[in-house]
């Protein structure tokens, strides 16, 4: 007891300073975590907090319904496929861009092209979606203009299931490639220039230098970023899809997150949507743990 008092007297000020943060975290992060129990209940929109807490548990009904529903595999497939396609394109792109920028010796050119390439990172998803709407517009859009010029028919690309994922992937690459190249460029700047000079004297070509000096030199960054990406694999781009999709492309665009949004907030099936959300959260946590284990196995520090 006296020990507690002694600690409080010595450190009380700092606990007091932490109180607002702890309060914030408990209310907005931990209460919703506990609130996930509504996935095992039947909560209706007009229940008060007290009624939600005291209502009875009904077990795994919502989970069973979800797994047995006809859209379960569609959602899984869309989420994973969109995410994998995005990774396939947007993961190597910044590495390639960094390699090319790294070969530029003119400081001004280098700085300007980097500055331009970071810009889309600072645009909100609404602005990016807006650019997509205008550029791919059926009437007056740049893309359809080029299509017509080359003898094609104007099309509503955004509403076309054959094109929708391509637009998602392209937009993601466009928005993330520049910003993503920063860490690689920093890692490349840290490589010893003497190694390159020695390679030059030995007559190594540019490609050989990239393969045997640059890529091995930045491999640790590549590995760690790839592991991070795998940990986030279930995040296929909620905001982006929500802003760009429409019922005509649901078959290829509807992911777990957009489904939770519609089922929960538009159709007010709170408990069912929470169950779907919890399923995703658990799956995501397992992926992250696995990715982190893998990082440790490779001898990297991982995320923790």
């Amino acid at each position, binding site marked *: 007891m006296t020990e507690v008092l002694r*600690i409080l007297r010595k*450190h009380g*000020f*700092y*606990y007091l300073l*932490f109180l*607002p*943060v*702890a309060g*914030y*975290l408990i*209310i*907005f*992060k931990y*209460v919703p*975590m506990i*609130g*996930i129990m*509504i996935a095992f209940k039947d909560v209706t929109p007009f229940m008060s*907090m007290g009624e939600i807490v005291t209502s009875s548990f009904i077990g795994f009904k919502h989970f069973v319904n979800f797994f047995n529903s006809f859209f379960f595999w569609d959602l899984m497939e869309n989420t994973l496929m969109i995410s994998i396609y995005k990774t396939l394109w947007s993961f190597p792109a910044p590495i390639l861009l960094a390699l*090319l920028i790294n*070969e*530029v010796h003119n400081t001004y050119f280098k700085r*300007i092209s980097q*500055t*331009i*390439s970071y*810009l889309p990172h*600072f*645009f*909100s*998803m*609404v*602005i990016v*979606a*807006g*650019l997509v*709407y*205008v*550029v791919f*517009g059926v009437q*007056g859009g*740049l893309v*359809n*203009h080029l299509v017509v010029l080359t003898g094609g028919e104007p099309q509503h690309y955004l509403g076309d299931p054959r094109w929708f994922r391509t637009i998602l992937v392209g937009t993601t690459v*466009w928005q993330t490639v*520049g*910003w993503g190249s920063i*860490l690689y460029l920093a890692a490349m700047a840290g490589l010893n220039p003497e190694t390159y000079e020695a390679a030059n004297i030995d007559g190594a070509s540019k490609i050989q230098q990239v393969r045997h000096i640059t890529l091995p030199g930045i491999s640790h960054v590549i590995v760690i*970023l790839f592991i*991070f990406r795998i940990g986030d694999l279930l995040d296929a781009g909620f*905001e982006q899809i929500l*802003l760009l999709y429409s019922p005509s492309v649901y078959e290829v665009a509807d992911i777990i997150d957009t489904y939770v*949004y519609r089922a*929960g907030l538009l159709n007010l099936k709170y408990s069912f949507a*929470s169950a779907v*959300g*919890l399923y*995703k*959260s658990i799956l995501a946590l397992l992926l992250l743990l696995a990715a982190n284990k893998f990082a440790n196995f490779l001898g990297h520090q991982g995320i923790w």
Partner: protein
Amino acid sequence: MRIKATPMERLFYVGNYVFLIVVSLMFLIPFISVLSTSFISTAEWARRGNFVLIPEAPTLEAYQFLFGGSKGTVFNAYKITMFRTIVGTFLCLTFTGLGAYVLARRNLPGRTFMTLLVFIPMVFSGGLIPFYLVVDRLRLTNTVWIMITPFLVNPWWLLIMRNFLMTIPVELEEAALMDGANPLTVLIRVYLPLSMPALTTIGLFYAVWHWNGWFYAAVFNSNRDLYPIQVILRSILYLGDASYRGDLGIMFEPEMMPPAQTLKAAMIIVTTVPILLVYPFIQRYFVKGMLIGGVKG
């Protein structure tokens, strides 16, 4: 020592410059195309009806409509965005800074537990619906605080801030205490000035987050007077989509409305220009923040 470039290498360098110029244009062209679309007049749109790179008679019709015919909607949205960005960033920095300061104290009993409290939400969350129920039952929905109060701390930036504070030598604090300063004075006079670079960087990240935020302001709020510019832009993007027309009819004078496409373009410009204006000056802070923070952000 510099070795003379072989013809192959020279070809590579030229090709590389050309490629990077093309890539840079790819980032700029959508924006330029939107900019020119925003200046097309109703008459020209009706007559030509397709893509126009350079309008024959550029007008500010769409902009006049946004700021004049919108019943003050766009002005008001700017006010809301300014409010959430300034107040939101200030509160985020206060909470994040205090939390980081406490967690940076090496000899504080319970520090590991408190760090864990910050860390766990980074890897697991209750999901959208329980979060919605909490903010709704706290009566934050349909108030301006829905954009601020639930987002006071980004755990990742708090931990980055803590790592930064841990690099400040303890001797400075010990010396101040020796001179009779109390813990509060140490915080304000010693640590606060020294953390200005980190606070600036993290503050800019928070500010951009607030400036760009739209989801919660649109989904957890149905009061049109509280829409920030991003949400107005989103409403305008759905123009021509019958189901959203009603919503816009209330916000705008539907007669005299310029063509949907030019209006969309003008609103994109109105939303983007403030970012473009400050971007060149703050860009280096972000790059620095990105590098100290490692990966996320």
